[in-house]
């Protein structure tokens, strides 16, 4: 029993962590008024950069850092399009989703001659390798990214609601003209937020390839950026909400693992779709409508009324 509980928690946290980073990235960008469907693409870049950085430096932490940096650099494309050129944010986000995996694979081929990297050293576990071995508590010896993800969520909550930068970011997402008249640089704020969102999404990608699997492959991210996007909306555009949405989703995945393998008499394919159905049910029954920041998705034009 205890074992099953810790197992469920451990797997939930494992599944949810890359989503947490992605969703936090989406949250910060959208709170500043820039819709970011490009999370998936940014995560792909991070997934690659994390492994490449580790491969080159031998230190997974440097790789993790590299993932953040590369995610941020890649996000500059979106920031340029959405903030500087006031392009349609949906279209540029989709473009990033096409570019991200494409570039990642292209670079991977140049690096390793194939679309898959060799295995690299992964990030350590929270309590070190093999702690609590053979006890139910071993299940709770999660990846260090889990802690970082939680820390990032808490930090973002703190920044958004307790600091002046947060106040400004939120004002820019709700009423950019008001912020502008108070001397807040709307474009710069948005630009920075989009880049931060790329950094976080990049870390999310790396927390797949450096914690869950310790190598890069085409399928490392496969759709998790979109789930993260859903978590942003599900979590009503707040860091704490998105964090919980990711946990819920991770838990649904964990349930299919715990319930699978003949524990209940359901075909495994049907079990596999459970998380997605569960998400919809929770949305319909408990969450309902969520309202985006008012200026989300609208390019800011000085003096527009």
């Amino acid at each position, binding site marked *: 029993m205890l*074992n099953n509980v*810790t*197992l469920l928690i*451990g*797997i939930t946290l*494992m*599944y949810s962590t890359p989503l947490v980073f992605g969703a936090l990235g989406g949250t910060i960008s959208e709170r500043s008024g820039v819709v970011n469907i490009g999370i998936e693409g940014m995560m792909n870049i991070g997934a690659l950069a994390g492994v490449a950085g580790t491969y080159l430096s031998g230190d997974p932490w440097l790789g993790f850092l590299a993932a953040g940096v590369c995610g941020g650099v890649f996000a500059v494309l979106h920031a340029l399009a959405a903030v500087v050129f006031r392009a349609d944010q949906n279209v540029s986000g989709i473009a990033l989703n096409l570019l991200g995996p494409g570039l990642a694979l292209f670079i991977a081929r140049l690096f390793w001659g*194939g*679309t*898959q990297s060799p*295995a690299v050293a*992964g990030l350590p*576990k929270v309590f070190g*390798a*093999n702690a609590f*071995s053979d006890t*139910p508590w*071993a*299940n709770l*010896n999660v990846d260090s990214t889990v802690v970082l993800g939680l820390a990032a969520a808490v930090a973002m909550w703190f920044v958004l609601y307790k600091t002046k930068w947060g106040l400004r970011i939120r004002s820019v997402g709700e009423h950019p003209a008001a912020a502008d008249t108070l001397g807040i640089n709307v474009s710069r704020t948005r630009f920075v937020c989009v880049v931060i969102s790329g950094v976080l999404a990049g870390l999310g990608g790396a927390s*797949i390839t450096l914690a*869950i*699997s*310790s*190598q890069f*492959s*085409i*399928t*490392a991210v*496969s759709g998790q950026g979109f789930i993260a996007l859903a978590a942003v909306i599900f979590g009503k555009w707040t860091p704490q909400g998105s964090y919980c949405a990711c946990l819920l989703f991770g838990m649904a*995945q*964990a349930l299919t*693992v*715990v319930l*699978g*393998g*003949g524990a209940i008499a359901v075909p*495994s*394919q049907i*079990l*596999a779709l459970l998380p997605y159905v569960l998400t919809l049910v929770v949305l319909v029954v408990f969450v309902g409508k969520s309202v985006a920041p008012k200026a989300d998705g609208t390019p800011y034009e000085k003096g527009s009324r």
Partner: protein
Amino acid sequence: ATLVACGGTANKGGGSTGSAADGGGTYKISMVTDVGGVNDQSFNQLSWEGLQKLEKDGGVKVGYTESKQESDYPTNLDRAVDGKNNLVWGVGYAMADAVKTAAKQNPDVNFAIIDDAGDTSISNLTGLMFRSQESSFVAGFIAASQSKTGKVGFVGGQVSDIVDMFEWGYKAGVDYANKENGTNVTVSSQYTESFTDEAKGKAIAAKMYSDGCDVIFHAAGGAGKGVIDAAKDANKLIIGVDSDQYRYAPKNMLTSALKNVDTAVVDISKRIRKGEKLGGKTITLGMEDGAVGLAPEHDLMDDKVYDAAQKLMDKIKKGDVKPPANEKQYDTWHAELEK
């Protein structure tokens, strides 16, 4: 058995290996991957590595095309034919239909398909099959013999005939060990529903280990990477698949159930190039042919177990033990064993 053994031994083709002597230009071989892509760390990759080896040996030019979706199979095969290739490999049972159609349409090009029986009525198509249940059987035997907890696990990718060979061969091997050793080791088995979802592989394996399994065998392609990772985290044993996966986890990799697609591809390609009439035939390779087997490293294995496994392999090679390849065969096999 549904398997038709033809061809037989691997290295008796006649003639030497070094052969730029076939006259004319270079011999061209192309392969078309299934949707797994050329770096799937499974049969696509092994096939490609085999072909590259072939090219290095000289006289042959090789190439590949990756399929992105099922509807790419016919057109990619088509292009391979247009590229004036003498031999075209279709990798994976998923391509069976497309390869058969292409072979019928292009009678003057040789085709070969991996993991499918081909079609005896098509004279330019060679099917290449592996008796993976044989190596899985030994893997099961080793797992059960090595287990201290009396529980072992199997993690599959997506249910299919090929993965069935691994699962039921493995289960039979465990039964066999139970009978030999007088133990009662049980197998838990679970599928990731994906050949790529490493997280799921890891989660399932973590669950099995924390449920008390101490050895897991995986046949889950890329998702198996997660299984290996889980073994490292839990400090438990794991049995790899397809190629020797020792390098991924030297401290945990008990052994690997090999499926030497690369050597088989090299071998068949050479024989077809030599002009051997393999068309219309299914070549089924097993342990006896060296096409499936176990990885050499055994530093984590008890010597007793290793020796017993070697003996078991001899028996399989001789045909004294015939592991089952699917659930139905397993049931009959199991009933017989109980007797």
